[in-house]
């Protein structure tokens, strides 16, 4: 059984290659079967492996071949399987399968049906390789692979150049992080002589002391990679724009799996981070500040997908916070529950968009509660989990994160307070979405309700979002155990109460209208603050000024090829000399003769010794 895990990424990959080569000639049914079936099969195999692994939870390694060997640099195409891998693989194949199924209905009218599934399958394969890799180089392969698939899928509707713009932005911004990560890989290999993740942990503990400079630099470089991929400050700006892709893509790539790769990377290399406490604090601070920034921004957005995108950024911020405070398993737990409820929300929004003629503005929706009941309940459950209302899956994971953050020495309570503020905002913006879209008066009539291929994934994800909190993650062996201390009870009570307060506020403001905030909102300060938040804290404009435009200007400046001017100068000198000498060749016999005679006289004079 264990030897078969190599097949799990291979099946979607093969299916993707088939679809690329034959895509145009296959009937739609076949394309759908191939696309969904391959991921389904991968999910099935993952399930079987899980059963096998849980019976005998011993990590194992599978080397397919040595990728490249130069001296002692010999990374393999090799997989490592432990509890963390299992969790990630289950999320990818499980949620991935549901999203593929959903896509068959969502994309049924699209002309490029085969291309869509080819990309989507390739993404699943790359993501699986990312989480299964036993060395950082293979992980990097998956890492870049998912980046390219994300690029292809964001720009899937290539006819609109805005989509291409968004896709390029997504790729290039994450590439900045990826490049930093590659430098981290160089550093790790140069210092420790291996890229195998398990061996790195051992070698790092032997070579370095806690607080050394090198692990700090290495961890910060890896963090830069994680920040890029997971859309954290300051490299988050690509994610809201990436919503240009088809909505199931946003659900799979930009909510459930790819964007959490950064969390996975840090969790995977936690032994390095334990050697660099400052890097851990950096992770926590990045997470907390991102989560607050994105929550404020989500409050002001109007586009349903952008709200969800900022909410994703914010939730991944929580995961980073968890990792930064050493709550490794809580971070991974939140990763899983978030995959459930955020995929649910995105698919729900996809259903709305699908049935509402591609309408994205929430204020043009409204009253959909009775017209799209399945979607309504999906959104209710998803938002409840997102807001971390008690007993939903999000509640368990977020609660763990907040409690463990509280216990950190020194800054712990501050981190906890920040997290609470984020939780309050989360509850407000998620239920703002629910009340605006599903209650009130209807602004746009849906032209259909969801079919079974949409309804089934939604229902299953509802179940997972509700009860996923009860799943016990098999990661005890992977991470060092957290301290058994529990903070005072009031801390827990406050953590539970805050989201409920948020929901009540959202109810009062956006549903019953009993809490009037217009006066507050119309104050000049609040107005400009809203605009500031709406623009994503002005970071896009800032980067545009700081990097994009200077780069364009630089390119325009160099376009004329200044180096060539140097050679042009040589040419010019030669041409001038040529001009002078050519003067002498006037074509007039008499001048030639005169010069000849003068020459003769000079020669004769020299010969006669006159000079």
């Amino acid at each position, binding site marked *: 059984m264990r030897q078969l895990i190599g097949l799990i990424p291979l099946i979607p990959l093969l299916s993707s290659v088939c679809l690329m080569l034959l895509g145009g000639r296959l009937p739609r049914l076949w394309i759908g079967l191939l696309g969904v079936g391959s991921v389904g099969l991968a999910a099935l195999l993952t399930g079987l492996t899980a059963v096998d692994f849980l019976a005998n939870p011993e990590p194992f390694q599978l080397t397919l071949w040595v990728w490249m060997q130069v001296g002692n640099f010999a990374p393999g195409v090799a997989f490592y399987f432990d509890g963390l891998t299992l969790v990630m693989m289950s999320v990818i194949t499980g949620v991935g399968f549901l999203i593929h199924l959903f896509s068959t209905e969502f994309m049924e009218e699209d002309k490029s049906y085969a291309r869509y599934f080819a990309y989507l399958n390739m993404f699943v394969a790359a993501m699986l390789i990312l989480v299964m890799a036993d060395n950082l180089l293979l992980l990097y392969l998956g890492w870049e692979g998912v980046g390219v698939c994300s690029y292809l899928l964001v720009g899937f509707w290539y006819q609109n150049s805005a989509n291409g713009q968004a896709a390029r932005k997504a790729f290039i911004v994450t590439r900045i992080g990826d490049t930093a990560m590659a430098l981290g890989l160089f550093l790790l290999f140069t210092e420790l002589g291996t890229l195998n993740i398990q061996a790195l942990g051992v070698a790092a503990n032997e070579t370095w002391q806690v607080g050394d400079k090198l692990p700090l630099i290495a961890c910060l470089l890896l963090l830069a990679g994680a920040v890029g991929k997971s859309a954290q400050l300051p490299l988050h700006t690509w994610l809201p724009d990436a919503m240009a892709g088809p909505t199931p893509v946003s659900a799979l790539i930009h909510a459930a799996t790819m964007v959490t790769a950064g969390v996975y990377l840090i969790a995977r290399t936690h032994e390095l981070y334990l050697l660099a406490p400052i890097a851990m604090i950096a992770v926590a601070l990045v997470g907390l500040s991102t989560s607050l920034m994105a929550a404020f921004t989500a409050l002001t957005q109007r586009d349903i997908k952008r709200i969800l995108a900022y909410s994703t950024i914010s939730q991944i911020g929580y995961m980073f916070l968890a990792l930064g405070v050493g709550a490794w398993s809580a971070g991974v737990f939140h990763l899983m529950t978030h995959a459930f409820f955020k995929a649910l929300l995105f698919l729900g929004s996809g259903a709305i968009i699908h049935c509402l003629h591609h309408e994205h503005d929430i204020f043009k929706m409204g009253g959909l509660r009775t017209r799209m009941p399945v979607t309504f309940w999906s959104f209710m459950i998803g938002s409840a989990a997102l807001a971390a209302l008690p007993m939903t899956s999000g509640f368990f994971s977020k609660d763990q994160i907040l409690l463990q953050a509280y216990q950190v020495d020194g800054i712990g309570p501050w981190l906890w307070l920040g997290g609470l503020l984020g939780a309050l905002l989360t509850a407000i913006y998620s239920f703002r979405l629910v009340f605006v879209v599903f209650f009130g008066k209807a602004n746009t009539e849906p032209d259909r309700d969801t079919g079974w291929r949409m309804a089934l994934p939604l229902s299953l994800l509802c179940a997972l979002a509700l009860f996923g909190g009860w799943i016990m993650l098999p990661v005890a062996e992977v991470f060092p155990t957290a301290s058994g201390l529990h903070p005072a009870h009031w801390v827990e009570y406050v953590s539970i109460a805050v989201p409920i307060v948020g929901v009540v506020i959202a109810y009062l403001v956006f549903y019953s209208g009993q809490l009037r905030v217009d006066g507050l909102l119309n104050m000049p300060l609040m107005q400009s603050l809203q605009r500031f938040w709406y623009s994503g804290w002005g970071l896009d404009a800032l980067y545009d000024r700081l990097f994009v435009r200077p780069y364009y200007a630089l390119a325009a400046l160099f376009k004329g090829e200044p180096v060539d001017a140097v050679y042009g100068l040589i040419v010019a000198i030669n041409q001038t000399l040529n001009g002078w000498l050519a003067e002498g060749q006037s*074509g*007039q*016999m008499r001048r030639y003769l005169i010069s000849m005679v003068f020459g003769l006289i000079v020669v004769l004079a020299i010969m006669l010794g006159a000079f």
Partner: protein
Amino acid sequence: MDGLNIPLSHILLVSSLLFSVGMLGLMMRRNIIFILMSLEVMLNSTALAFVAAGAHWGQPDGQIVFMLILSVAAAEVAVGLGLVLQIQRRFKSLDMDNANRMQG
């Protein structure tokens, strides 16, 4: 060996004077006929030098070369006059400076 005995240097002086006259004519005249005439003068000045030298050394070579120069001059005049006709036809003038098509 009797009679008028002109020293060689006198004849060479006359010859070089003739040559210079021809060359100056070549350099200064623009009319192509005069250029041809100057050329003839130059050729004849050299021929004179040859004859004088031949007489001085008592050798026949000088006179042989004189014959050669004579025939060269005749041929040159033939070609030259042909060119003159062509130039007259093409440029409607005998100005040598008009024929400067070969400049670089």
